[in-house]
């Protein structure tokens, strides 16, 4: 292996690692706020990628119907809850606006945009707008009703949601794979390295997204409220933070980050309805190394996962997934040896 190959693999690894970092951060965020280990994060990436690629191909993405269906389901849950506790007209109107009117408006807008010859900029915005509401809808339907269940029950529910989303992905997107054109045709020559414009876009967007999340959590009141919910749920309720809203917000942010990651990788690899799972699992490995708590550690681990993956696909390409997922074992052993065992609280 000469230095050119080494540098090439390193660059490839960092590019993938940047996307895994976004996924890992989203998984940590959801876990911190809601205690859900969100296995289906990868599906949101796949849906983002498929939506963007289909829009770029001038077609109407199935996401419009998927989002509308989930919104309707979320509204049905709100309606049922409201019937059992007494109807609050204002709450129901708000729910109808978010769960019914929003997807309807998105459907109308997407219908106008699809095939009308808009550029990537508009397609990116539409993709983000279509996939992001899926986060709160999924939270409302699958997790909010069992918000105080054990971590294990929430995890099993997450696995169920993953299976359901893969099936729905097949229904709404079909079995064919799609790939989007690159976001930038530029290539940069750095000594022996050719850095593609797409890689540069991935680095820039990842850094910007991480910066924006940092700003949100450190400076914005709502960001602090999410952080507070993660640190102490009872404390958060005592100051009047509605934990269900915090959960919906966390899922919305995670879906936004997922859709963004999908847009970033759509030009790099061919995406099928079930591609998300393996990508999501790599973000999950990074999140586990970060103990589902540390954002910086997760980001660093994600880069390591990307680099290990790049090298193992060069050295032993058949075993590359095995090698990546085996990374988790020494980390778990080390954690269980160095950290005192803590019983799950509340």
């Amino acid at each position: 292996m000469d230095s050119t190959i080494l540098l090439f693999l390193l660059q490839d690894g960092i590019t993938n690692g940047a996307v895994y970092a976004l996924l890992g951060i989203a998984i940590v965020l959801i876990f911190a706020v809601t205690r859900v280990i969100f296995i289906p994060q990868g599906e949101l990436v796949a849906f983002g990628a498929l939506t963007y690629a289909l829009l770029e191909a001038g077609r109407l993405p199935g996401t419009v119907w998927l989002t509308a269906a989930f919104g309707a389901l979320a509204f049905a849950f709100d309606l049922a809850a409201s019937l059992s506790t007494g109807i609050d007209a204002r709450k129901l109107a708000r729910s109808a606006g978010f769960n019914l009117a929003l997807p309807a408006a998105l459907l109308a807008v997407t219908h106008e945009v699809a095939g009308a010859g808009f550029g990537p900029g508009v397609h990116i915005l539409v993709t983000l707008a279509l996939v992001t509401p899926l986060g709160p809808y999924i939270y409302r339907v699958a997790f909010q009703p069992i918000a105080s269940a054990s971590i294990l029950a929430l995890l099993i529910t997450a696995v169920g949601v993953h299976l359901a989303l893969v099936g729905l992905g097949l229904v709404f997107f079909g079995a064919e794979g799609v790939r989007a054109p690159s976001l930038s045709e530029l290539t940069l020559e750095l000594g022996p390295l050719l850095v593609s414009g797409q890689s540069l876009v991935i680095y820039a967007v990842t850094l910007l997204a991480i910066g924006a999340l940092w700003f949100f959590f450190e400076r914005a009141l709502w960001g602090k409220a999410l952080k507070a919910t993660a640190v102490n749920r009872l404390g958060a309720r005592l100051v009047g933070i509605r934990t269900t809203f915090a959960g919906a917000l966390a899922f919305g942010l995670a879906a936004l980050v997922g859709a963004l990651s999908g847009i970033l990788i759509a030009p790099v690899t061919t995406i099928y309805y079930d591609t998300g799972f393996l990508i999501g699992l790599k973000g999950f490995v990074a999140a586990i190394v970060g103990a589902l708590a540390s954002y910086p550690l997760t980001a660093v681990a994600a880069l390591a996962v990307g680099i290990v993956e790049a090298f193992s696909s060069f050295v032993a390409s058949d075993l590359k997934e095995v090698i990546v997922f085996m990374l988790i074992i020494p980390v778990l052993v080390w954690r269980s040896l160095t950290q005192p065992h803590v019983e799950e609280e509340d």
Partner: protein
Amino acid sequence: MSVEPGIRPDAVEATVLLDIASASIAYGKVRAVEGASLRVGAGEIVTVIGANGAGKSTLLNAAMGALPLAAGAMTFLGRDVSRLAVEERVALGLSLVPERRELFSTMSVEDNLVLGGFRVARAVARDTLAEVYDRFPRLKERRRQLAGTMSGGERQMLAMGRALMGRPKLLMLDEPSLGLAPRIVADIFRIIADLRASGVSILLVEQNARAALAAADVAHVMELGAVTLSGPAAVLARDERVIESYLGLH
């Protein structure tokens, strides 16, 4: 069943803030509180004293909505709150400083306080923050420090400051003196008296019966989940049973 936010006819006197009537509270099948009643009027300090495990904290947690009522009624400002969530009671002006403080330990003192005003308009929260810093100068000195690194007394002050940031009408304090040095306990009780002077009503649960009876207007004694004795604090402080059980050898 919908909950009507109507005013109860007998609350017209308007001085009653919190009215708990024959409340029973259970953990699963175990009844921790059985038929307890108490009222807190505007501007009053009401205390509940009793031994460890008598159900005092349980009663406060139920008043805040962290535990459901198994039986009985609960109104706040004449409005039935017995089925409202914690967050909704906060919005009405109820606030609890729990025994374990429940601070945001990995966040700064100032962030804890700012979040305390989460429900309050921004401008009001800014003024209230200045008031809280005046009341607890120690918190101002330490505003950049992480809440989890402070001493027990400072954490208690931060918990009280955070509760005050929400501009509560009724502040419920669960064992504010627990585990604190006597000098700090005196500080805490001085602050409680100050708070009442500024118009906040207080429901105080304490094992330190002597300090609680000295500070309160009305007192209730809880034993084994029931309120067994109620009356003006000054009267209870001279009651033989209270002296024997709670004021004896401390």
